[in-house]
């Protein structure tokens, strides 16, 4: 009984901290009373440290009591008993969520401390930390989610903060365009997640992982749906995971994401956000087990993405893009491991890779400075030997491959040509038809507002 109260208290502390931080920063901004840098840094530090210690305390308690699965019930957020609908708020501590939660706090704490100095006196300091708080809350909720709807809740928060931070330097055009591109991909992938979540709810009558994945804590669960359903829902979830983890064909957004400030690039695309897709696959791995075809699809997608990532990473001309594709390679290998059923290996791989990549990305801005110091010291440029592939491959293939790598597998170009352009073209055509129709009826140009210069009735002087 006492241990239950302790778990509940600690669970609430872990989730409530980031929520309070977001509420504090968000409210102060909305009422136009932004907080000072020092206060933001202290609040962030306090929340992260509190959350980290609470998570470690949960881990210690679980090890002491020999528990592998601890649910923390927050009750029903919404319940309609007559319709058998309930939105259950539940967080779970198990072998998957605890490491991920601790990892999130450690890396977010590191990045938060780094960012408070890195962005000192930056005009968007407050905005950065609002997005940071949004991200932290999203990560913690996703990590500890005990129901698929709760996981979706956190997943969405991560997506929004990610897109806004890519567009952080928003007075320039490129970050904004890239932010929108990332948001678009996320939303399409999230749509698949939402359909999968509701399908699961519909099939099993619950969104609770404990009921979806049958008895036994992670990774020993047994899903209770048919193979066909598992294949259909699994493919939707794989689509969602591919979007979040930038697997092929969604890999185009990963280098674009590097437009954001270095701390957010580190925490999103080096360590946490990019692994969220893999985390989702790990969480629903009992579903993957039900369908060999689904597992094979996961392995193939991981392999293709890994090969793509490793090839493209070799020709990148800026360090952040090179690291982004290196990240993609590792995440894809993790996905292959999940497809093969090596869940613990995948989890260890995630933790190791996240820590290493965060360090690399935080180090990236000062790396060239060190390179130059090194070259100055030796009095010459650092040389690089051509790789084995370059030496043995015929030049004709080498050039083709190089072009393929330089164009990042033509993924963006294919997406523009076959999806975006036809879509926009179709709706622009419909728009012109509508315009002609209304002009015909009204006998005047209905769209003069589109050609009006935006100062006709402005408060500003012309």
């Amino acid at each position, binding site marked *: 009984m006492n241990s239950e109260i302790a778990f509940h208290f600690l669970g609430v502390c872990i989730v409530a901290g980031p929520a309070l931080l977001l509420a504090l920063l968000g409210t102060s*901004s*909305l009422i*136009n009373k932004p907080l000072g840098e020092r206060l933001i840094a202290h609040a962030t530090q306090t929340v992260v440290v509190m959350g980290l210690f609470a998570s470690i305390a949960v881990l210690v308690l679980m090890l002491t009591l020999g528990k592998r699965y601890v649910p923390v019930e927050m009750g*029903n*957020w*919404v*319940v*309609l008993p*007559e*319709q058998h*609908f309930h*939105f259950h708020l539940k967080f779970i501590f198990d072998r998957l969520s605890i490491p991920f939660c601790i990892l999130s706090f450690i890396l977010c704490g590191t990045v938060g401390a780094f960012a408070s100095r890195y962005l000192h006196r930056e*005009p968007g300091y407050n905005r950065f930390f609002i997005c940071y708080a949004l991200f932290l809350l999203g990560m913690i909720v996703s990590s500890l989610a005990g129901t698929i709807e709760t996981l979706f*809740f956190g997943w*969405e*928060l991560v997506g*929004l903060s990610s*897109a806004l931070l890519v*567009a952080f330097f*928003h*007075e*320039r*055009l490129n970050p*904004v365009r890239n*932010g*929108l591109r990332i*948001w*678009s991909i996320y*939303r399409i992938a999230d*749509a698949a997640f*939402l*359909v999968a979540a*509701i399908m699961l709810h*519909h099939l099993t009558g619950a969104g609770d992982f404990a009921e979806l994945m049958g008895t036994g804590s992670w990774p020993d669960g047994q899903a209770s749906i048919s193979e066909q359903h598992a294949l259909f829902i699994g493919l939707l979830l794989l689509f969602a995971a591919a979007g979040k983890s930038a697997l092929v064909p969604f890999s185009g957004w990963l280098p674009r994401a590097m437009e954001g400030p270095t701390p957010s690039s580190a925490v999103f695309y080096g360590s946490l956000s990019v692994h969220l897709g893999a985390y989702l696959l790990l969480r629903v791995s009992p579903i993957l087990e039900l369908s060999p075809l689904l597992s094979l699809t996961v392995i193939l997608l991981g392999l293709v993405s890994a090969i793509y990532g490793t090839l493209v990473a070799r020709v990148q001309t800026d360090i952040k893009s090179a690291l982004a594709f290196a990240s993609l390679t590792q995440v894809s290998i993790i996905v292959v491991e999940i497809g093969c059923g090596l869940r613990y290996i995948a989890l260890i791989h995630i933790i190791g890779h996240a820590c290493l990549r965060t360090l690399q990305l935080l180090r990236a801005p000062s790396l060239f400075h060190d390179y130059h110091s090194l070259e100055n010291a030796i009095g010459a440029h650092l040389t690089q030997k051509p790789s084995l592939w370059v030496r043995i491959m015929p030049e004709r293939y080498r050039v083709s491959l190089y072009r393929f790598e330089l164009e990042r597998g033509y993924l963006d170009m294919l997406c523009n040509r076959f999806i975006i352009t036809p879509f*926009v073209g179709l*709706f*622009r055509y*419909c*728009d012109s038809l*509508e315009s002609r*129709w*209304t002009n015909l*009826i*009204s*006998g*005047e140009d*209905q*769209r003069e*507002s*589109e050609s*009006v*210069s*935006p*100062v*006709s*009735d*402005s*408060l*500003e*002087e012309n």
Partner: protein
Amino acid sequence: MLPELHLPWMEISVLITLLGSIWLKFTPDRDRAYKRCIRICTLTCLVTICGWIDFVSLNTFAASEPFSLFYRLFHKNLFVVDDLSAPLLPLAALLYLLTVLSTLKTKGHSFSFSNTLISEAILLSTLSSKEPWIIILLLSVATIPPLLEFRSNKRSSRVYVLHMGLFVLLLVAGGLLSSFKDQSGTLSLIAGALLTTAALLRSGIIPLHCWMTDLFDKITFGTALLFVTPMTGAYAILRLVFPIAPDWALQGIAIVSLITAVYAAGMALVQQEARRFFCYLFLSHSSLVLVGLEMATPLGLTGGLCVWISVGISLAGFALTLRSVEARTGRISLKTYHGLYEHTPTLAGLFLVTGLASIGFPGTLGFIGTELLIEGVIEIYPLVGTAVVIATALNSIAILQVYFRVFTGTHHSASISLRARIPEHVAILILVALVIGGGLYPQPGVISRNHAAIQLIQQRDEAFQENKVSVDYSISEDKHHLTTSP
């Protein structure tokens, strides 16, 4: 006999707005008219809130008004509040109050406060009526104030007149036919079809939606917003069509609404002017509401009603933000980036929050409603239901695209301060508080909408049962007549 409220709240609120309108007609000074209008709208809003609290305290499905002037004159209850309309009335009054509050004084010459109060009186009367003929009459009359603004702006109102004329014609014809009783049911089917078409036209279902973009293009943003945002088309469907339409007809409407939702979401993505963008965004959302309403299942209908409230609040906030920006810069072209964030950071934040709330982003009012809606649709059409998700995804992309276009992408040099005024700020903050408060504590709202949904479905079942009994009775009468005739 229906239980009675403690006071005739609805009649009082309508009377306040009508008398206020007359008062403002004789107020030539714009500043004074603005202040008086705010007072009148605040009082009306408080009265409707009191009415809602009174209704909730009665713990009943429906309640009539005591000491009713209308009842004394015509021996009919004009105002009947029920689970469906109880929260819609304060919502409508709040919408009017906040629109007036966020109106810049410089816009007073084009935005008529007096006509706005008349519109509010008509809307409140519509939302508190259950009598089909009264609803038909009020919906018809409600089309006049925007028309007056078309005329005062000296703009062509042909598109609007054509569509609204057809709307009124269909409503009246449908109302007339539905008042006849026929055994075969053909007349009532035709009446239902006419009323459905009218209500869909008023909701802007494709291909009958062009009046809406024309409206936003040619009259003030405030008036256009107040004409479409309360979604009286959806209300007409629930009051006039829902009780008499067979299941297959409702499902047909749902499919048409779904197509509109996806089409409008796609169109919102390619618009080059902010008002038209908002119009399509609203159209997509209101169509999603209709999808839920036409499911005729408790879950789908609850979802539809929840989304109705959330869209009403969040898109009103979104539009008011857009209107505040427009008041500073003139019509907002979406062909270019404006970079207004630096000058109006709070408006940017509010724009984003209200926009995301409209798509049912987690933690906002629409989240649970959207979940319920999708689940309700998937329950009936497992694959078609994904279209709702696609429409929502497209809307969210469109919202962020416009956010970036308006507030980011360049450095804007302003000759004067563009910061939001306190009334504008307060107006939008109230809506944001509702959106986030309702998102964090959704249970009471969802339960209330669920009660309304169950009540509507029960009424529909009773109507069908009555219809079936009368048809069976007439058939048995005919048989009896045939067997006894020589």
